[in-house]
């Protein structure tokens, strides 16, 4: 078992590295968070991971705030701060330096190539996040119906996420899950 400092180091190391692999935003990193936190380290159960994801969606602010909840769950307030800094620090430093130099490579051909190359990867990662979250949220027919119903509605209509969450929370509460 990890000692107190050991677990903070593990949190910092894992999320610090993960932050630089989060291509196309924080949601891309959700499957890897799940793999490590639930399957490898057993910090959270499937249910707790899904709950954390839901709570992060319900809290205003960037969705990446899910890492704060994971850190809090693992090591309290210190864990939350360490995890948040680890997830935000490396990309912020990178953005800081690239942002200063961005003018120089704005029109460069490789920039366009890399951007285009990352699009299908981002799509694949987002799809993986969706399936991982759906898989952890619950296996009942109601959970599946909510996922499918929301997907279809949001695809064809401009749905505000809060409405979708409110309806889904009520359906969940109705005890059918």
């Amino acid at each position, binding site marked *: 078992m990890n000692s107190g400092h050991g677990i903070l180091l593990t949190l910092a190391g894992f999320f610090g590295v993960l932050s630089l692999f989060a291509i196309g935003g924080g949601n891309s990193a959700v499957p890897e968070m799940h793999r490590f936190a639930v399957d490898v380290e057993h910090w959270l159960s499937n249910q707790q991971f899904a709950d954390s994801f839901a709570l992060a969606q319900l809290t205003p602010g960037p969705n990446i705030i899910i890492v704060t909840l994971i850190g809090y769950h693992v090591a309290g307030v210190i864990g939350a701060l360490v995890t948040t800094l680890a997830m935000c620090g490396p990309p912020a430093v990178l953005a800081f330096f690239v942002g200063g130099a961005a003018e120089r490579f704005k029109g460069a051909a490789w920039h366009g190539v890399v951007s285009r190359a990352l699009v*299908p990867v981002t799509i694949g990662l987002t799809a993986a996040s969706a399936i991982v979250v759906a898989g952890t949220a619950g296996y009942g027919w109601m959970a599946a119906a909510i996922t499918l119903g929301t997907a279809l509605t949001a695809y064809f209509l401009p749905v505000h996420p809060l409405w979708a969450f409110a309806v889904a929370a009520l359906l969940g509460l109705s005890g059918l899950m």
Partner: protein
Amino acid sequence: MNSPSPIPSATEPEASPCQATSAAAPQQPRPSLAELFVAFATISLSGFGGVLAWSRRMMVEERQWLTPEQFNETYALCAFLPGGNILNFSVILGLRFRGALGAIAAAAGLMGPPLLLVLCVGAIYAHYGDVPALRHMLTGVASAAAGLMMATVAKMARPLFRSGTVTGPVIAFATFASIGIAHWPLPLVLAVIVPVSIAAAWVRL
């Protein structure tokens, strides 16, 4: 809301690294550290389930710190970099307007308030997480969030399939399968797929 304080004369010379873009150069907005902090805190706290729409409204329409073109350009750069897009956005804008301190003020405004909020949420969950009613509601919300992501994926994938090339869909599916179904580690998968995807995009150039 205070307006972006129009300065009638030209802005301070030390603050303009780039040449004037046109003869009729609009004055360069130069929000203070406090304004940066407040703007990003506001974006953060009003943005449920994604903050892109809110950041555009604030930056382009309300404060007019960016033109629509500048917003698109900056946001494309942020999406290109790893990590949360909006976090990158706050750092780059803060840096552009107020240097290193501006970057810190903007990022702190973005992350600080939700951090405190989510800590309260976490503490409440630690006490009441086992209450069945809460459980069921959260399961519903997580299911809906998964559905929203699926809709996003479908919308993003449309141009990919319309483009007529096979490589895009193949790479998207390979990424999905190796991460979402096989549950392989993300760094390993990206170390293989990203170079392959770049090579494919380069050949098509």
